[in-house]
């Protein structure tokens, strides 16, 4: 494990803890820009640190821990897209991003089509799109990767009432945005490769959010069990509850191990990187959701009141399950990979 990785973790934890839970976008984003977190996975040739996702996921774990609202995953994906663009098409936008102007990337699979002269479609689960300077998205089938400036014509941004309020969720509706107003970052084979890279990394980012959030929620729950008393003794003395938190810790530990294994596979460009990323996302978000479901039960009534942060983790956990690839489709893709191995 690189030393940088541990430093990054410590630094991120401090920033996020100082920002409170949930760590607001306003408190985290400027510090993240200042500390150069956006440079983590950016190639050195682009002025970045050229580190891998093995390091980047540590950052996203810490953001998950603090329920951070800053769109750093989206920014990291945008940077990846801009750095990989053909013809330096994205260079000036990369500069704006690194200077602290968010560029939004959808965290769910949307439906974007290039029809006639314009780009049309609806993109869901786009974090912080309202405050972004641009949007990076791809047409269906990964035919082309586009950057659409926020102020391009026919771009409408909505803020649907997501139950998870820790992140600034937007939907972007493109109603025939003129091609001339958008930037083509890549087409054809290059677009396909870039989109693959983005979806795999998006899965790692959400898995990391889940691993971090789950770990923090487990800690809150352990603390509750240690302090809350019932029938004259702390809840932590009830063996049935001890066994349940032991199971949660086990699931989270396995999810964390798989996340790092998947990130290493992605960094090494291994042939099984895809499958590992889908598996990591499935396992991590399932573990987070289970942890959140159990945590609410173990907290009893107190967790049902908005004052307690339990529900913020729950809503984020349940949403994470649906992000970065529909879980049913990912499970099917993994199952089919096994079937292919079965010959």
């Amino acid at each position: 494990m690189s030393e940088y990785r541990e430093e990054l973790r410590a630094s991120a934890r401090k920033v996020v803890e100082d920002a409170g839970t949930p760590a607001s976008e306003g408190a985290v984003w400027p510090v993240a820009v200042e500390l150069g977190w956006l440079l983590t996975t950016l190639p050195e040739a682009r002025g970045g640190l050229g580190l891998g996702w093995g390091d980047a996921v540590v950052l996203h774990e810490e953001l998950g821990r603090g329920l951070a609202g800053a769109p750093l995953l989206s920014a990291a994906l945008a940077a990846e897209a801009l750095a990989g663009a053909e013809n330096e098409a994205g260079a000036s936008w990369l500069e704006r991003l690194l200077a602290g102007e968010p560029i939004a990337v959808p965290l769910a699979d949307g439906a974007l089509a290039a029809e006639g002269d314009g780009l049309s479609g609806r993109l869901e689960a786009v974090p912080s799109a309202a405050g972004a300077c641009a949007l990076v998205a791809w047409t269906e089938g990964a035919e082309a990767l586009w950057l659409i400036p926020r102020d391009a014509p026919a771009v409408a941004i909505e803020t649907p009432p997501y139950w998870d309020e820790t992140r600034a969720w937007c939907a972007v509706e493109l109603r025939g945005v003129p091609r001339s107003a958008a930037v083509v970052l890549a087409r054809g084979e290059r677009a396909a490769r870039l989109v693959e890279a983005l979806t795999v990394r998006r899965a790692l980012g959400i898995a990391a959010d889940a691993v971090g959030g789950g770990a923090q929620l487990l800690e809150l729950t352990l603390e509750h069990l240690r302090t809350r008393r019932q029938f004259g003794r702390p809840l932590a003395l009830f063996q049935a509850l001890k066994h349940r938190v032991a199971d949660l810790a086990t699931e989270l530990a396995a999810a964390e191990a798989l996340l790092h294994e998947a990130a290493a596979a992605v960094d090494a460009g291994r042939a099984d990187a895809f499958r590992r990323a889908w598996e990591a996302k499935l396992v991590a978000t399932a573990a987070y959701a289970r942890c959140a479901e159990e945590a609410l039960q173990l907290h009893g009534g107190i967790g049902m009141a908005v004052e307690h942060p339990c529900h913020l983790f729950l809503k984020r956990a349940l949403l994470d399950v649906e992000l970065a690839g529909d879980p049913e489709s990912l499970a099917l893709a993994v199952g089919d990979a096994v079937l292919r191995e079965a010959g």
Partner: protein
Amino acid sequence: MTAEELASFRAEVRAWLEANVPRGWRSAMTNAPQEAFVALQRDWFHKLVGAGLATPHWPAGWPGGGRSLAEQKVIFEEIARADAPRLILYFVSLYHAACTLFECGTEEQRDRYLPGILEGAVWCQGFSEPNAGSDLASLRTRAERRGDRYLVSGQKIWSTMAQYADHCLLLARTSSEGPPQAGLTYLLVDMKSPGISVRPIHQITGDDEFAEIFFDEVEVPVENRVGEEGGGWAVAQATLASERGLTLVELSARLAHALPRLGRALRERGLAEDPGMRRDLGRLAARVAAARALADQYLERRIAGRERVGDASLVKLHYAVVLREFARLGLRFGGLPAHRDRGFVRGATQETGHWVLDFMNSYNWSIAGGSNEIQRNIIAERLLGMPREPRTWRLEEEA
């Protein structure tokens, strides 16, 4: 009542409900303000009372009263089948308060309070306390005797719709001597008494159907005590047993009637052709059928006088577990769109088809009214004969 008479009673109830359930109440109550909901509850309450369907469990002689448990079961089943609004605002009045008065109240108390209930007086329950959870014996709200009054101070929590209540069924501590249950006393408290303040709890669902009640030296006349001083525990048991399993008959029937909502969710997401999804729906439907059969069987046992200690826990635990499974499948079928659906149906149950909301509301059954964990203890110890944990069991450093 013979099977034929029961069937004809069912037909009668069904016909009345078909004619009287407020049309379109679900859409009217979706994202409605609390006040609109209270108005709907009032109207529906008066209609039901008028039809004699709100008080079948009251003794004969009272309007609508004197119905057998079997008839009561029919009413609850038909209410579920007709998808009528749940009578949330009046449940404590009609069941908890009335049954406590019938079973443990004095004649004066009955005369004073029961007619008011029929006229729409709202009661709330003041049992739970912060930090007491399922351990009612550890309650700390104090009632000190001062001549012909008690002075009550303390805090109650998770009281359903207390902000609308006229009266409160209060369990308070009059002594800290002896075993913890022994010092509890049961009082009827006028919610307009000076020193009472009510604060709605902002729930994680966005709802505020529960409230906290704060008592600051509230005066309660001694004649408002139910049972003896120190005898509140037994009275509270009567209160809690008052619905006799009918609620879970109704709720599990509602769950069964709500299964098609899951089917529609599959259709909406274009997954209705997927055999895996359809099988998972089938497996859940089988679980729901079991929950319903268990609730029905429990009531039949009560009717036949064959209830065993712990049977009620089986029903409640199983319902809570299956309800959670229902909610989980809803989340799965609902997918991402469910997360931006903040639709909110007041007076409905935990299977409104607004899946994130339903998931959260399912905890009302796994935590409240004796958590799943408490039910498991009861089942293991009372029904299966496993030994109880020693009362002296403490942390080593405390021992």
